[in-house]
């Protein structure tokens, strides 16, 4: 086990049309840490995520996951270690049944027979979706799709879970269930979101991304308490939301 679960060192990315999305971005995430990546639309959050498992090729800088460097020959290993939950679950669930979808990843890793079944059952159980196993993914509700999408990734036993806007399109109850689910998972998590209360509830640490750079990195409650920082980066708390009060609530699980 290496010192950090995820280490990003000075990555930059420019689209073919010259639009620069990431600008020498660096970030270290410790093992077991749950960290929020905050930023407005267009800040480069999704582009950043697509670099973590080599979907987008590195143009500059380096990415290391659990001690393994992201280079072509390690691509398979990196993709196993980085579990990516995409923003739109319809893009992630493409097999005819939930069970086959969850089996897709581990089957690509070479698992077969009983080992594969055990892996699939375990992943479905950890998101409380065993009852959905034989359903067709496109007949599920938004919250169910999100849970199954997480199961498809957990089935690969990743070292880091990367979630891109996990709360988008969920109703408040679905959002609550998702928070409980993520809280119950002990692996390292990077939660990309502009849902600030969600970040505060789940992630002790946050980084703010703006114009492809990390402009703030620290205790989530401290960052959300900084009205100037939020305003400068197009981040908004819901009306009437007080991050201090929310964190200091005695029954709250958030700890700095």
């Amino acid at each position, binding site marked *: 086990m290496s010192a950090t679960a995820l280490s990003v060192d000075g990555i930059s990315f420019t689209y073919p049309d010259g639009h620069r999305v990431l600008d020498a971005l660096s970030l270290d995430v410790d093992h077991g840490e749950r960290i929020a990546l905050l930023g407005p639309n267009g800040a480069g959050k999704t582009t950043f995520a*697509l670099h973590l*498992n080599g*979907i987008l090729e590195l143009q500059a800088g380096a990415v290391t996951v659990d001690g393994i460097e992201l280079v072509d020959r390690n691509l*398979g290993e990196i*993709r*196993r270690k*980085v579990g*990516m939950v*995409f923003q*739109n679950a*319809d*893009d*992630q669930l*493409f*097999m*005819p*049944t939930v069970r*086959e979808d969850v*089996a*897709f*990843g581990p*089957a*690509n*890793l070479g698992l*077969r*027979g009983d080992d*594969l079944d055990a892996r699939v059952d375990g992943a479905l159980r950890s998101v409380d979706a065993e009852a959905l196993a034989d359903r*067709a*993914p*496109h*007949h599920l*509700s938004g919250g169910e799709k999100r849970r199954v999408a997480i199961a*498809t*990734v957990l089935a*690969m036993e990743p070292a880091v879970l990367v979630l891109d806007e996990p709360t988008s399109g969920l109703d408040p109850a679905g959002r609550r269930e998702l928070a409980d689910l993520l809280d119950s998972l002990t692996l390292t998590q990077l939660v990309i979101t502009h849902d600030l209360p969600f970040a505060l509830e789940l992630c002790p640490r946050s980084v703010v991304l703006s114009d492809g750079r990390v402009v703030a990195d620290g205790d989530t409650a401290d960052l959300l308490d900084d009205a100037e920082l939020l305003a400068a980066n197009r981040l908004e708390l819901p009306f009437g939301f007080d991050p201090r009060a929310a964190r200091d609530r005695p029954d709250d699980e958030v700890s700095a």
Partner: protein
Amino acid sequence: MSAGHTARLYVPGDSPLHRLAPEAKLVAVIAFVIAVAVTPREAVPAFAIDAAIVIVAMAVAGFGPRLVLVRLAVVLPFITFAFLIPFIAGGEQVEVLGVSLSREGLWGTWNIIAKAALGASASLLLAGTTPIPEILSGLGRLRVPPVLVAIVSFMFRYLDVIVDEMRLMRTAMTARGHDPRWLWQAKPIASSAGALFVRSYERGERVHASMLARGFTGTMPQLEQRRATGREWAAAAVVPTIALCAAIGGIILT
């Protein structure tokens, strides 16, 4: 989300036909359709036997006559032209209700309608008793190349999603007063078809990215599943065997 257009053909149930392995059903249906197709049109008793098998199978599957007739209506547009044949075909003429019709043409009409109805009934039995994922896994076990099975599977998976997108676009157009009645008003429809294509293409790219993220290397993983037993093959073989015997009998006797 829609209720699923592609899942509508399946009639939930637990009959022996529902439980039969999909690959056995697929082969049985294809063999039955071939047997019907080669049956000479004059062999009316052979068609009666085929129809009897189909009716028995539908009773076993628990399909009501109403359901079957509604679904069989699908073939109507394809066979309407068959009704024209007796009027335009030449040869020996017969008088029916005062109208002069071609004997040859009448046989032609009968041939098309009987075979189309039997073939369509067999396929609706397959589709009604087998969910699409099972048909796909059955195709896989029949050694259909995995890439073809994957293409069909993706088509079914995303058909609903794309149809929903199309409906949303149509609703958005209607909401802003678009009410096309004439051909020259079709431009927004054409451009929305273009937009739909681009959206689907982009979705394809995102799906591919998510497949790569889960270790996709270019071939779909083959998952082992329950295979058809000898008994299931034997049971499924009964239907096409009877139809084939009827066809051979028809060929010999006519």
